[in-house]
């Protein structure tokens, strides 16, 4: 590290600690006096600052503010209120500076009471200046929208109507990949009217805000500029169940998921609205969900409460494979690298799986409580505050994007490690007494349900008379998943143990849980003297997921009976005895009975 290194760090620390204009000016002065040091790897930018108020403090602080964000910035400052002349004239000193970025800093005071005044006149003048800049240079423009006037704070509807008209006009007129709009209103709200407005400083120095607000204004402009150069978040990949809606679509049905605006469903809708806002700003959205595609389409088609539509998503990976494989495909298809990708999922296991496979992808720890998620994401700093327009072309990029990753990753080896790391423990209990969760699973499970028999306890007891029943409860590193599977095995004949009922929660698919359960069933059946296991599959509209479960587990099809497809697995088959080293099986204290 060169001698500059230590100096640079302390200069930047001094800048970051600046709370008042005095401290900011001192840190800017020190940075300049040290020769404006930078790291060789930092992109070099040339920022021209022009506007209709005193911008000297901002200009003076810009180099150190951009240095704190990893940019080496040379700064040109227009003379006071010369923005129209400087931008409209092709040979102005501003263009002579050859800026890569132009900041047009407009305050509402001069616009409202100066020569322009009316919203149409303002929009015309700003558009003309911006269009001239787009023609006369290659620079990217950052344009500030006018901030609230002091009169607006004391509830003057005319002032608010004026600003609303100007902002609406500018948002329509300034749509361009090379223009970023910056809204100062959140800054003002955060500071509060008392701390922001001080007319004495406008009168004497043409400063529209109290001088000590300068560090915050400078920071926000620097953030917006840095964000325009290298946007923080390009793609948000989202889960569906318990993330975009309450409940699981596969189990609860399209009509059973919670999107109730009057209740907890409201919080899932808030997240949808938040994502819509990101999408409007140019961030891409994609889905990575373990679900049946037809069920998901039903939700989009039949739930009018949904705010996001299928067309809002640049990719939809809806299947039962590990989510990391979804990411590989999404990134490849969209030609994106992992930089600037965010993954939102309520399930800590899924979060860990993706994080482990793609360490560069940002995977926030979403709060368990859906009500807190949007606030957490807003605070996270992951998403730009600015109003963005579409991405600019390669010419304005200061970074070179990484090459897109190869589609086929070797998921298998890493995935096994991941499964082992989950430290799964399966607690096995007999089905002997009416149990609410078991009953619920029997009635509600649709997708992983081999025979879809909606037994009540009397009927179930009849089936179990000569056979046995098991419930399975899975815990892992992230917590207790509760009872996730129910099995009922009947004895039709001395040698045969038929799996009359087998259902499982889709939440734990893909973790070798099915194999572990089969091993447990087989062990039990063997103890009871059966020679082979019979698997029964009754196809329904919703359980296509398990069409090939038995063949996959090593069973052979032996025939049909009515609506059922029958399979058999001899119990001396080695596979039936295969133990899964990912999952530790534990008999609950109340079992070990025939």
């Amino acid at each position, binding site marked *: 590290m060169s001698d500059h290194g230590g100096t640079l760090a302390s200069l930047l620390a001094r800048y970051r600690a600046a709370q*008042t204009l*005095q401290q900011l000016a001192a840190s800017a002065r020190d940075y300049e006096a040290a020769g404006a040091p930078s790291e060789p790897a930092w992109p070099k930018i040339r920022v021209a600052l022009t506007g209709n108020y005193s911008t000297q403090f901002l200009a003076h602080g810009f180099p150190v503010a951009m240095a704190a964000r990893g940019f080496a910035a040379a700064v040109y400052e227009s003379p006071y209120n010369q923005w129209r002349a400087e931008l409209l004239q092709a040979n102005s000193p501003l263009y002579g500076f050859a800026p890569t970025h132009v900041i047009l800093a407009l305050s509402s005071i001069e616009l409202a009471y100066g020569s322009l005044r009316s919203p149409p006149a303002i929009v015309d003048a700003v558009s003309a200046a911006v269009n001239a800049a787009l023609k006369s240079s290659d620079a990217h423009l950052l344009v500030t929208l006018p901030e609230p006037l002091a009169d607006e704070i004391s509830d003057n509807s005319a002032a608010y109507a004026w600003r609303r008209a100007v902002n609406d006009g500018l948002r329509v007129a300034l749509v361009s990949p090379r223009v970023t709009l910056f809204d100062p209103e959140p800054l003002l709200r955060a500071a509060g009217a008392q701390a922001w407005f001080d007319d*004495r400083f406008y009168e*004497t120095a043409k400063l529209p805000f109290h*001088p000590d607000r300068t560090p915050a204004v400078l920071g926000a402009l620097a953030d917006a500029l840095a964000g325009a150069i290298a946007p923080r978040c390009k793609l948000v990949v989202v889960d569906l169940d318990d993330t975009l809606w309450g409940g699981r679509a596969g189990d609860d049905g399209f009509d059973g998921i919670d999107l109730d605006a009057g209740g907890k469903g409201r919080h899932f809708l808030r997240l949808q609205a938040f994502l819509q806002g990101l999408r409007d700003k140019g961030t891409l959205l994609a889905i990575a969900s373990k679900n049946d595609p037809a069920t998901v389409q039903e939700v989009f088609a039949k739930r009018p409460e949904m705010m996001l539509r299928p067309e809002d998503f640049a990719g939809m990976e809806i299947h039962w494979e590990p989510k990391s494989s979804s990411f590989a495909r999404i990134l490849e298809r969209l030609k994106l690298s992992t930089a600037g990708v965010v993954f939102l999922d309520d399930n800590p296991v899924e979060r860990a799986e993706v994080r482990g496979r793609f360490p560069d992808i940002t995977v926030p720890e979403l709060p368990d409580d859906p009500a807190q998620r949007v606030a957490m994401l807003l605070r996270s700093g992951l998403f730009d505050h600015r109003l963005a327009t579409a991405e600019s072309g390669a010419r304005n990029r200061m970074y070179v994007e990484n090459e897109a990753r190869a589609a086929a990753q070797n998921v298998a080896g890493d995935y096994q490690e991941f499964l082992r790391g989950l430290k799964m423990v399966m607690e096995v209990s007999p089905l002997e007494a009416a149990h609410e969760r078991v009953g619920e699973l029997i009635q509600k499970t649709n997708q992983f349900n081999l025979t879809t028999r909606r037994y009540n306890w009397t009927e179930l007891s009849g089936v179990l008379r000569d056979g046995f029943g098991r419930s399975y409860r899975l815990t892992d590193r992230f917590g207790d998943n509760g009872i996730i599977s129910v099995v009922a095995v009947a004895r039709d004949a001395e040698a045969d143990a038929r799996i009359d009922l087998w259902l499982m929660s889709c939440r734990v698919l893909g973790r070798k849980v099915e194999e572990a359960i089969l091993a447990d069933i087989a062990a039990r059946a063997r103890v009871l003297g059966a020679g082979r296991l019979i698997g029964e599959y009754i196809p329904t509209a919703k359980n296509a997921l398990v069409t090939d479960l038995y063949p996959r587990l090593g069973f052979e099809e032996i025939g049909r009976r009515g609506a059922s497809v029958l399979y058999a697995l001899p119990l001396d088959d080695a596979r039936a005895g295969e133990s899964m080293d990912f999952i530790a099986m534990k008999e609950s204290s109340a079992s070990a009975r025939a």
Partner: protein
Amino acid sequence: MSREAVLRKLEPIFRDVIDPDLVLSEEIDASKVPLWDSLKHIILVVEIEMRLGVALTTDELANLRNVGELVTLLQDKGVQA
């Protein structure tokens, strides 16, 4: 508070904001100090308000270019030790 005492309270502020080597006296005004430009003036006013606990009006802000007048003003406002 005596004029001398007010000057002593002002000197560290002037040194922080305008010029660390400045020796403050009542005769000093902005035209005599190259580093006392309009930018510095803003910061100066903000710092005086904050550190001495006074509030200055627009006119007072605009006209404060002479340290002697500043001392009188601060005495009138009852700046304390």
